[in-house]
Structure formats: C-alpha cells, structure tokens
C-alpha cells in the first residue's frame, strides 16, 4: 500500500465538511472520527517511513502552471514528526470540542477540520507557493474560531491576531514571489519548488531583505519577542480546543519555516543575521520566563512559557549547528506534546474553579485529586525539562549546539533552563497545593472523558522520555540538510 499524503491532508477538511450536514449532536463526533482516521493513517505513514530515506511519499502535480506553483507534498526527517504531532493533537482538541455543547457546532467542526488541513498542508508543502497558500489559509479558520466562540473580548482579540499575523504573511507573500521570480534564470520557466529554488541561490543583497520579510512573518506566527503582541489577548479569549492546537501546533509552523525555507534558500543571509536572531532568541527566553513567573492567569503562564520555549527552538535553529538544529526539531515536538496536556489541565482546573482561569481562584486542589495532581506533575516536570524527559534531551542538544558555535548566547540561554523550573513549579504549587481557594473544588479527574483524553498524551510523553532515540534517529538524518547550506556559507 502506498501512502498518499493528500489523504492525510484533506481528510480533516472533508470530515469537517461532512459534519456540517449531520445533526447538531453528531457534528463534534464526526470531527473526532475524522481526526482519529487521520491519525491512524499518519501512523501507517510513520511505520512505512524509511529512516534516512530522504523525501518520501512525494506527491507532485501541476497546480497553477502559469504561476509555476506545483502541488508538491513530501515528508522527510524535518517534518515527519510535525505532521505526526498535528495529527495526534487534533484528536484531543476535537474530543474537547465534542464533549462540550457549543453554539453553532456545525461551523465549529468545519473550521476545526479546515484548520487541521491548513496546518498539515503548511508542514507537508514542498513548494513555496503552496506553503504560502496554506500558511495564510490557516488564519481563516482560526479567525472564526476565536471570533465566534471566544470570551468577552473575542472580536478585538481575533482582529488583533489576524492583523498581526497577516501583516507578516503578506510580507512573506511578497518575499516568496520575489524569491521565485528572481531565482528564475533568464528565459527559464518560473518555479517555486524548494528543490529548484535551492539550486539557484540569490545574491547576498537580495537575500538580506528577503530574509527580513520571512523572519518577520515567522516570528509573528511563533510568537517570539518582540512580535508577540497578539498573544495575550488571543490566549485569554480563545476557546480551549482552539488555543490547545494553536499553541501546540500552529506556533510550530513559524519556526519550521526557518528550517524549511530560510536556512536552505537564504544561507548567506542566515549567517549574516545569525547574531541578531540569537539575540532575539535569548531575549525571548528571558522575557518569556520572567513574565510567565509573574502571571496569575493560567493561560498566560503557558502562553509566556511558550514564548520562552520557542526562543529555545529559535536558538537551536540559528546556532547553525547540526546538533542545535536537531535539538530544535525535537523540541518543537516536545513542546507541542507538553503544551496540549497543559491546556487540557487548565481546562480541568477552570471547571473546578468556577470557570476562572486565575490562580487566585485555585489552590489546594491536589487534596482530593491525586490523579489530576500526578498527571499535572508529570507534564510540569516534562515542561521544565527534567532529566529523564525528552524535553531534557532536546534542550541539551540545543545548548550543545549553541555552546559550540556562539558560546556567550549559550551561557545566557542556560539561565532560561533554571527559570523554567521556577515558573512551572510556582504554577503547580499555587494551583494544587497551599491554602485552598474559597470556591475551588477538589475533585479528581473523571474516569470517562477527562482521563481518557489526557492519558494517551501523558503516555506519549513518558514513552519519549524513556526512548528519545525514537525521535532522534529519524530527525537525525535530515535536519542537517538545512544546516549544511548555512555551514557552506559560513566557511566562505
């Protein structure tokens, strides 16, 4: 059986579309079925993936030949686990959607499905035009998801989110077109395929401004300091299933773009701006950590901690070192895997604290809820990169890489590891221990939906902690491809 990436790609959107025509009560479960099928098919793909086999399961068709845009999909060691992560995390998100009653569930299901397709498309695209199309398409479902089902200030939050992100995306659109047109040799047919673009490097001068446009788009998407202005509003207002996938998966598209597009296609610029990007990464780590420590809103604690974590990932990427890059990809997966359960836990905590997200309303919740406390502790320890977790391995690789290439940034970033422990432990303590909140209710996870959703994720975290080589082996072979280009430029 050959694996067709198009099936993985469009199955979620089709499920969302089908859900529109089912009765209201079924919409959620139709979406769940779709995402489970997608995951199942993705697991088949993972099983058939040949380690070290280069680009696999390639689909390559004409889409818009006049513009040189091809419908080109592929999976290699760089995006394999990101595709898996997307397919995996959409399952708990859609279950979290299905178990609660929402207004207009048909549309919710449709946009969730469309969102998964767009994210998968961005990860699998091997053509710059296709990537840009999916990258921008992602915004449409999330615009509606936040704007229609969010909290009080949802319209403000979602408008801010979309304008921030689309400013980046549109600049990237201009940059992508320019990259394609300028790399076309005279008289040649224009092509946006990554492989073709990599063969025709641009002059250093053009690379510089293209780099800045791409970097802007990706940094906004991630988000990374100082372009995270939309984050607090969106994280506070978005409905839980949405913010779960947004934080865990969508944010990775930004940093993934650096590895897939910026480093291979703009190698000289990547070297030129290396120190700038490293500085941004380090500031992000410190800024995110400090703010995560000072927040009372549980969603913002995770939000700012994500900024710090994404800073780490960026650090690994721009260490321009193969170890650093490998650590970065690994950390993308790890961060997604811990953020998703963290948001589920935030949801559970909110249910027990009168639908509030503030730490002030929590406290002492571990008293009658040992399972919840245990699960939370595992996730918290994984987030702060306790030795024995896959996150530890990821951060270690990133720091190794950075220490090797730019030792100063590596040393400063190490402080971030300590800070992570500080804010995660504070979060855990204030929610679970100490004086019980007046209205907080200590009730353990229900054996049914609550535990069933989170348990598999925790098992995946534990399994990868025990056997991180499962990731490392498969990532190992390919992350350096992107790095090599930069190394070449470095030596020149």
């Amino acid at each position: 059986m050959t694996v067709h990436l198009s099936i993985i790609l469009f199955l979620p959107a089709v499920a969302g579309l089908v859900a529109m025509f089912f009765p209201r009560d079924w919409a959620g479960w139709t979406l769940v079925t779709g995402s489970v099928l997608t995951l199942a098919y993705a697991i088949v793909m993972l099983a058939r993936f040949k380690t070290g086999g280069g680009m696999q399961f390639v689909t390559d068709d004409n889409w818009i030949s006049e513009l040189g845009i091809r419908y080109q999909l592929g999976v290699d060691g760089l995006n394999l686990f990101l595709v898996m992560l997307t397919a995996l995390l959409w399952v708990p998100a859609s279950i979290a959607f299905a178990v609660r009653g929402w207004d207009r569930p048909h549309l919710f299901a449709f946009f969730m499905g469309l969102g998964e397709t767009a994210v998968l498309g961005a990860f699998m695209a091997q053509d710059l035009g296709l990537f840009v199309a999916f990258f921008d398409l992602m915004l449409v479902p999330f615009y509606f998801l936040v704007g229609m089902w969010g909290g009080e200030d949802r319209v403000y939050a979602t408008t801010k989110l979309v304008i921030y992100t689309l400013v980046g995306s549109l600049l990237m659109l201009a940059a992508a077109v320019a990259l394609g047109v300028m790399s076309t040799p005279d008289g040649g047919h224009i092509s946006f395929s990554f492989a073709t673009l990599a063969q025709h490097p641009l002059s250093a001068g053009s690379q510089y401004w293209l780099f800045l446009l791409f970097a802007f788009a990706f940094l906004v998407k991630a988000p990374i300091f100082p372009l995270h202005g939309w984050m607090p509003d969106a994280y506070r207002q978005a409905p839980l299933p949405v913010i779960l996938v947004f934080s865990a998966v969508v944010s990775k598209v930004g940093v993934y773009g650096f590895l897939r597009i910026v480093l291979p296609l703009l190698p000289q610029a990547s070297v030129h701006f290396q120190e700038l990007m490293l500085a941004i990464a380090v500031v992000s780590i410190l800024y995110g950590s400090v703010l995560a420590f000072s927040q009372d809103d549980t969603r913002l604690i995770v939000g700012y901690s994500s900024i710090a974590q994404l800073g780490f990932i960026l650090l690994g990427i721009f260490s321009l070192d193969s170890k650093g890059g490998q650590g970065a990809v690994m950390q993308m997966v790890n961060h997604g895997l811990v953020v998703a359960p963290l948001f589920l836990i935030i949801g559970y905590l909110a249910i027990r604290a009168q639908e509030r997200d503030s730490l002030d309303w929590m406290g002492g919740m571990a008293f009658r809820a040992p399972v919840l406390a245990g699960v939370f502790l595992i996730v918290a320890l994984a987030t702060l990169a306790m030795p024995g977790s896959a996150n530890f391995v990821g951060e270690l690789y990133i720091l190794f890489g950075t220490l090797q290439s730019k030792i100063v940034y590596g040393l400063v970033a190490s402080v971030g590891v300590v800070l992570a422990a500080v804010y995660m432990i504070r979060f855990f303590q204030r929610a679970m221990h100490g004086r019980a909140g007046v209205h907080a209710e200590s009730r353990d996870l229900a054996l049914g939906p609550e535990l069933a959703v989170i348990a598999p994720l925790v098992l995946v975290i534990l399994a990868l902690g025990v056997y991180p080589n499962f990731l490392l082996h498969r990532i190992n072979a390919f992350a350096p491809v992107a790095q090599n280009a930069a190394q070449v430029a470095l030596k020149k």
Partner: protein
Amino acid sequence: MNTLNVIAAAKAPVIDYKGISPLFAIAGGAVIVLIVALFRGRFVQRVLVPLLTVGALGAAIGLTIWNWQTGDSKPIVEGALSIDTLALGLSLIFYASGLVMVAFAWRSVALRESGSGEFFGLMLGSIAGMNILASAENLVTLFVGIELLSIPLYVLCASEVRRETSLESGLKYLVIGSVGSATLLYGLAFIYGATGHTDFAGISSAIGDRVDITDPLLLTGIGLAAAGLAFKASVAPFHAWTPDVYEGAPTPVTAFMAVATKTAAFAIILRLFDEALVTVQVQWAPALAALAVVTIIVGNVGAIGQNSLKRMLAWSGVAQAGYMLAGVVVGTKLGLQATVFYLAIYLFMNMAAFGVVIARERVSEHGDGMKSLEGLGSASPLLAWPMTIAMLSLAGFPATAGFIGKFYLISATVDGNWAWLGVMIVIGSMISLVYYLRVIAVMWMNPLKIEVPGLRPRREVRPVAGWSPEADPRRQPEVLVVTLIMAAATIFFGIVPSPLFHLAHDVGTSLSSLFT
C-alpha cells in the same frame, strides 16, 4: 489635403460583419428593448423586456466566443475599430455584469420608477459604449465610446426619480464625468498635435520615429489623457466622486458601475498606455506608478471609517483600481495578463458583495448600513457566506480567487523590476484587512461593539437606495442565486484558476508591442 485624399477618406470603410456582430447584438438589443417596452402591459414590463435584454447579452456572448481568435488584432471597421482578444475578453466581463445587473435590478424600485425599457435600454447602450471603447483603434472612436458609455450611466444613476440622493448622484456624476471627459478630450487633442495621427498604430510608430519622447506637447497630452481616464477608473486623486455616486445610485447600477465601468476604463488605459504609448513607457511609468501608490493608500484608508456598505465598497474599489494600475505600469505582457486576470475575478467577488447588499437593503431598516448585516451568520447563512467569501477574496486570502490575483499581480511587478510596487500592493492589503474583517465580524461574531474611534458616521442610519416597504422582503431568489454563483466562482477560481489563466494568456497575445 489634396482632393485624392479627400475622396479616399470619403469612401465607406471596410466592415467585417462577423467581427462587429456582438456590437450589433447589443445595440440592436437596446433598440428592440426600447420599442417593445412601449407596450405598457405588466407582462411586457416584468417579463418580456428583461428576457429580451438577457437574450441580447446572451447572443453577444455567443458571438464573442464565435469570434475568439488569438493573435494580432483584426480590423472590423477599418481605421476605427478592431477586435483582438483583449477587446473580446474584456467585453465578456461587460456582458456578464450586464446579466448580473438584470437579476439585481429585476425587483428594484429604480426599474419600476423609470420603466424597464428605458432602464435596460440605457444599460445596453452603456455596454455598447464599453464595447466600442475596448475595441477602439483610434482616438476619435475612443472618445465616442467613452461618451456612449457615460451618458446612459448618468441617467441610470438618477433612475430612482423619487429619491433625492439618486438624483444627486446622477447630477454629481454628470458634472464630474463631463470634466473628466473634457480633460481626456483635451489630452487626446495634444497627442494628435504632437504625433499627427489619431490611430494608435500611427501614434506608436510616430513616437518611435520622429517625435521626441520628451516633447512637452506629447507629455502634456499623455498627462491630460491619463487624468481623464483616471476619473473614469476612479483612480486617486480623481476618485472624489466615487463614494457619493456609488452611495446615491440605485444599488444594481452601483454594482454595474463598480465592475463594468472600471473594466472599460482599464481596457482603454491598457490600450492607450500599453499599445499606443508603450514606446515611451519610461516617461509615463513613474507617474502612473505614483498614481497607483496614492490610489492604494487613499482607497484603503478611506474605506476604514465607512459605515455604509456601498461607500465602503466604493473606497475598496478605488484601492483595487490601484492594484490593477500597478499591472499596467510594468508594461509587460505579464502585467497585462495579471491586470486582465484581476479584472475578471473582480467581477465575481464584487458582484457577490453587492448582491448581499441588495438583498439586505430591501428588507433591513438600516438600508445599506453596516448594521444591516448584523447577525446575518445565524439569521441567513446563505447570504452571509457569499459576503464572507467576497470579503476574504478582496482581502486576498488563499483558497479564493483574490489570492491568486494578488499573487499574479505581485509576480508581474517583481518580474518587471517594479518590486517596490508589489510591496505597496501588500501594504495596501494590510490596511484593507481592517475594514474587510470588520464586515465579517459584524456578520458572524455578534454581539458586536466595534466602533471606529474618532470617526462619526456621516449620516444617520435611514433607509436608502433600493429599499421600499412594498418590496417583498423574503422572496428575491434571483438575487440570491446570482450572489451564490458569484461566490462559488470566487472559490472555484481560487482553487482551479486555470480557465481564467487561459483567458488571460490569450488576451496577453493581443498587444504584440509589449515587452515580454
């Protein structure tokens, strides 16, 4: 001029009847419609006349396809008109917007008040003018075309005779349109004076040959002609009439003007600049580029504070004209194709938006105000979706035709070494998000509280345009069907754009003088 020449000039021109047949269909249709409508019976007025109009437009579409042939232009009236794929392709857009207008106007107050024969007769006359304009080969036919296009439109704007704003709109359009025409005519005279030719081919060769490209007479002529055409295409700073006229005119007429008139204006801008004057591109390109930038900024900023949907769409139309002008500036084949492509998709996305405005203003007490869309997402998703798709497409989101159109325009600008103009398109799109997304938010994300701070609505909300108490509020299937078709086309061409690319490609073969 010696006598021989006079005799030669007096001879009847050679006419290619096959080539001119679409024009005959339209002009003949206009006459027939006028005559038939003399019978005042209800059946004639409500059914027969609209059907005849549709028949004329359908015949014209069929004859256009029959004439379709790529390659160089073919004279149909010697020295005056010639057809090529540019003229044929764009005239398809005129006919399509005419068909849409029939559906939009069918239940409108304007039609009842002015009589359907007059209304549709004028519309067909205007389309005939556009047709002549698009196939003009000569400065004189150009001017005839532009007047034939404009004069019926002045009347159509004022066709809702019992509403003051409609009359005001017609008068405003008449005054400003005449100033535009006069400016254009003055410019054409200068161009003739400088080159000694009125036909485009002669102008083009004269400029290459013996007229200095820095000749002040020529440059003044080009400047004045550009200004006159900019009035028609509502390019800033000659756009000031657009919001007022669009708002006051009956909405079906507004929709028609927004699409067809703009397309006609671009047809002649393309012809004049990319054919007759393409050899002096270095001279006019910077000026036209500056106009494009001003138009993009002014249009997008102007649209932000609008609370009337028609005004908002007017300003957005100004901005979109700026994007298309960028395609003209580059003066390459790719630029021409991108502009034509954008004009084609502009039909779909704009008509979808106007269809929703028409359907809503007939039933809502807020008329065409933003508030008339409030909560439309749950109340009437069949109308909310086309509007959403239109707004997303105008803003340039992927999976809609607008994305492909912008992609194409930007790649044309970069390819023609006008990369900064591509960046301007992008910056304009960023600003445009503010008002396009606001419409979507109003429809789907109620309860809404988005007031643009500091900007007060220009007027109190009151019923305007086609609204009337006797219009049946619930049943206007023809508007709904057309709107849905337009929205579906916007999505379809966003995913499968190839048919439109073929059209654009064929059109691109027409102006052989262009740089490749």
